[in-house]
């Protein structure tokens, strides 16, 4: 055995720890993205159904709504962007800092995601 062995073991353990952090947060961000895609599908279907219903009424066309595509796409983009930014910021960081950065990225993405969950339905106001 050489004197460098403990250092190598420690650094490889830190790398494994970072991989675990990446995987756990990749799953959490992926779940957030899946929910956002679900929102896009549900909201666009609801708007289409609402407008189709208005088409069957007399003079209801003025109440037609448009799908808020920009906000729905932004909703989908939040999680992947947050994950990539966290990955970039913590690329040379220690394990503890990596965990802190990923928790913060998830919290910030979550705050933005909740903003949009509240904001998009207000735009439609069926």
């Amino acid at each position: 055995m050489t004197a460098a062995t403990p250092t190598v073991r420690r650094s490889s353990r830190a790398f494994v720890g970072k991989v675990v952090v990446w995987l756990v947060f990749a799953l959490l961000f992926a779940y957030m993205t899946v929910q956002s895609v679900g929102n896009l599908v549900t909201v666009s279907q609801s708007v289409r159904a609402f407008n189709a219903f208005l088409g069957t009424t007399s003079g209801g066309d003025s109440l037609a709504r448009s799908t808020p595509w920009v906000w729905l796409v932004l909703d989908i983009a939040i999680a992947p962007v947050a994950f990539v930014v966290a990955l970039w910021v913590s690329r040379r960081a220690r394990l503890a800092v990596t965990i802190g950065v990923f928790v913060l990225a998830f919290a910030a993405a979550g705050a933005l995601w909740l903003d949009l969950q509240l904001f998009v339905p207000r735009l439609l106001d069926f």
Partner: protein
Amino acid sequence: MTTAASPPDGSVDHDDDALSWGDADDATHVDAAHNPVTVKERSGRDPEAPETSGALIGFGVFGGLYLLYTVAWLLTASTSYVSDVDTVLTVFVEVLRFLSIVAPALWFTVVLWAGRGQRTRSRLLWMLLGALVLFPWPFVMTRSFG
């Protein structure tokens, strides 16, 4: 390959150099090989160095702002974001609700802790980004002012 300036025997002839800075025995002679130029490091700062008063004021302002954000997120803690959803999504939203309350304090701490070696300006820019990202829109949307 032998160039026109090189002596035929391959030895280095200093007098053929483009510039000659004088005799090495001269008292004013400076040999660059033994006097390496030190370049001031611009990208980082000493983590142990005390903060400047400007930096302290900046961090104090953002700390106060983030405290207001925390209170605003806390006041909207009972806001209903989703309805008629499965258990997993309900738990997920509850976790996000909690994280959004602690996010301002977390952002402040992580920027100061993880960015110790960074320049003050870049840390203040990260603080500004946090102020934009974590703005408590649910508080503004669920309350009417005036």
